[in-house]
């Protein structure tokens, strides 16, 4: 058993495995890189399960907002499963970020194969469009605006913009259909494929999965889901998903292609390239990547403050 504890990370007594076959969870303790990966994966599985339940009622056509409102407020357990889906999705993103960040922090990308690292970064990258498409599928004013912004950003990509837009999101009656397809089929399947080729197990550390499920279920009962804004509501300031606040803020000042496409992709590309950087340049590359991510984080905080202020003042 390898004990890993980063600076400031709490030293927690490892949880004993509950059964002999739960070997992956054995000796894994909170805060460790493996634990973060396990939590990310189980968050994804819980989101997948709750998403399947929601899919029985959700319809990506017609008055989507009314469907979501009905699903949340009227259908038995609809609110609970939507909350579960929301919380597990957010945890999937957060744990994936933490898992990747710890790899960079410990420079463990040097110890694994470049292909494995690429797979991990791709998983990390996919968490964002998964959450973003889910955000669109709310069908409320924010979701619709997010979809429109996504369509506008994609259209800014030279040469392939319109073609890419045709497979990502289309205006009109099918507005929610393609994001739905991506959110429910293409992106989850890709995540599962990447994970299995990365980990080769579908249900590692079931005990931790159970703990997480219990925590999320409890949270889903008491945590108030962010309010949906009716698409026809007048005025007010709409915001994208929390990780988009920085880009939303920067879009006021810069060209959409550079701010909305290149700027968020840049640190991702750097992440993928890290294992391929010559050894002597690795400290600089790590430093550069960290600076870029930190800049993103700072923009995010500024964007969040700016939007909160605007909403408090005029919203």
């Amino acid at each position: 058993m390898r004990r890993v504890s980063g600076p400031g990370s709490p030293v927690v007594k490892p949880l004993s495995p509950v059964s002999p076959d739960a070997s992956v969870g054995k000796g894994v303790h909170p805060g460790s890189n493996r634990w973060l990966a396990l939590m990310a994966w189980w968050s994804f599985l819980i989101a997948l399960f709750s998403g399947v339940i929601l899919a029985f009622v959700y319809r990506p056509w017609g008055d989507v907002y009314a469907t979501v409102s009905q699903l949340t407020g009227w259908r038995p357990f609809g609110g609970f499963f939507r909350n579960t889906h929301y919380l597990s999705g957010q945890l999937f993103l957060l744990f994936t970020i933490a898992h990747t960040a710890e790899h960079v922090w410990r420079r463990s990308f040097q110890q694994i194969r470049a292909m494995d690292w690429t797979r991990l970064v791709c998983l990390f990258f996919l968490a964002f469009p998964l959450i973003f498409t889910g955000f669109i599928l709310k069908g409320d004013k924010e979701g619709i605006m997010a979809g429109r912004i996504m369509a506008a950003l994609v259209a800014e990509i030279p040469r392939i913009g319109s073609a890419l837009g045709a497979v990502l999101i289309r205006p009109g009656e099918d507005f929610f259909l393609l994001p739905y397809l991506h959110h429910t089929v293409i992106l989850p399947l890709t995540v599962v494929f990447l994970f299995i080729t990365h980990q080769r197990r579908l249900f590692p550390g079931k005990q931790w999965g159970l703990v997480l499920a219990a925590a999320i279920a409890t949270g889903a009962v008491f945590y108030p889901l962010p309010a949906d804004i009716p698409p026809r509501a007048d005025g007010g300031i709409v915001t994208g998903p929390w990780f988009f606040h920085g880009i939303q803020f920067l879009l006021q000042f810069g060209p959409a292609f550079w701010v909305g496409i290149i700027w968020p992709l840049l640190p991702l590309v750097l992440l993928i390239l890290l294992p391929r950087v010559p050894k002597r340049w690795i400290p600089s590359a790590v430093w550069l990547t960290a600076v870029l991510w930190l800049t993103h984080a700072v923009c995010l905080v500024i964007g969040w403050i700016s939007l909160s202020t605007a909403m408090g003042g005029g919203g």
Partner: protein
Amino acid sequence: MKIRSLLPVWILLLVFGFLIGRAQYHRKSGPIPPDGCVQCHQADKDPSASHPVAVMGCAVCHIGNPFAGDKKRAHIGMVRNPGRLDLAGKTCGQTSCHPDLPKRVTHSLMATNRGILSAMQRLWPHADDETVMDVKTLTNRPVGESMALDHFRKMCGGCHLHRPRYPRLGEIGQRGGGCTDCHIVELETPNPDLSRKKFHHPGLTTRIPSENCVKCHNRSARIGLSYFGRFESEGYGTPFKGGAPGPRRLSGGRFYLELPADVHHQKGGMDCIDCHTEKGVMGNGTVYDHQEQQVDIDCHACHDPQQQTIDPDPGLTKRLVRANNRQPSSPSTAIFFSAQQSPLYHIRSDTGNRMILYRKRDGHPVPFDRLSTSGIHDAPYHRRLSCQACHTRWTPQCYGCHETRFDGAMQRDWLTGRKSTGRWTEGRGYLRFRKPTLGIWSNGRIGPFAPGCQVFINVVDPQGRIRPEATSRHLVMAGFDPHTTAVAVPSCEDCHLDPKPMGIGQGVLTLTDASLSTEPVSPVGNGIDSPLDAFVSPVGEPLQTASRAKSRPFNREELARIYRVGPCLSCHDRYQDPVYRSFDDALQRFNSGKTPCREMLK
């Protein structure tokens, strides 16, 4: 160890137990309602037959989150008055409801006030760089220097469709609100107690009660009063009752006298909507400068209707008939249409020359005749006369509008709802309901004119002194339909021997061989050298501005053509008289002494 490891399972079981218990407690049975608003709010009746809450729910109009379950979330984005014009595109005008109407209405004159704004900016003290042609733009602009716009903001700007509906008493609280300004049944500002399970929801209708029109159209031209036989009188309150001012009162402390109503109301009990079509009122999407361009009916639309075999929009006819829900039968297509192709679905041909109008309010049949062609209406010498020139029974005339601005005082700006510097007071010279002045309308026809408006502006500085440099006057006569139609018409002498209809003003007419002169009844003086009711001098010089570029008083030649008939009328007093077949020839024969008239006159 085992218990610890089973803890998550216990938690999960607890959560599911809690959820099942909660679901049992809040068990909802029956079919899914259109929205969850009815869990807390239940109206005593549907807004209208075509807006059933059981089918449509509340959120379809009032927005909000229909199934949110808690008050705060449910009310996010909710609107109390869905008819607000700034929101109408998302509420009344949403794709599946009335999608074409918000654009039409926002471009219509009742929303833009373009007619009032353009007239005021043309006739009042105003700098061109401040020119604005719609009330919405003006609302979003800071207050400028224009006296015309300052007056509009504080006096006229209370009547337009963009105005929010305020919970205030009286007529002010009944105006505004966008679509609901007209389509609501109850005039009082709705303020129901929504916390009660059974609250009263205001009714909606396309059978617009005339009161909804009159609440605004009772000033200036006062057609909303005149049509129903009310004349806004001087402010004395006469005739007194019980030693106190009489009970016939209008808003703003005004009084009225009862005069004969328009024959359409007097005999037929017709309302405004029985004549005025949806396109004429809500517009057709075009931004018009003046009401005569937007209004798409005239007397001919019903009394000389042009039958059309092809309905340009059969769907519209069906929808209108269905929405009206008072017509005796539902024609698949209308056969009579207004000038802008509004289906006059409530008018049908009867036997012979007879027609029937089914009142939109109650479907009651009102029989009427087509325009007669017995040598009167098609007389060539009267071909320029509008119907109103003869069939107007009386005309409300408000002479001398005294506007005083007190620079040192504050007054509410109707557009912003806030007070700003400068307070206007309005007084008038005198009011009359005599026969109208006639003149040339902008469409080239001869019709009634009345003061509209004769403004005397004084500005008082904060020290209470009149600012002479800001003092001005603008005498304007406006052509309009007084809405006091009568079957009976004046006699020939009433026009050809009376200086008032000629536009010269009330007085004693003196006709000599060479010219015409009058001794006015109305006073002259106080800085004006002609009576206020004189639109034109006896020699055809305009004395007042006309409210439209193409409208004007009679010119010298036209006046001569009118009054030269006068002396003949004592004998030749019938339309069918042979002298009127060619009056010029008859006059020539008279002047050459070939007629017996000269002998008789001797």
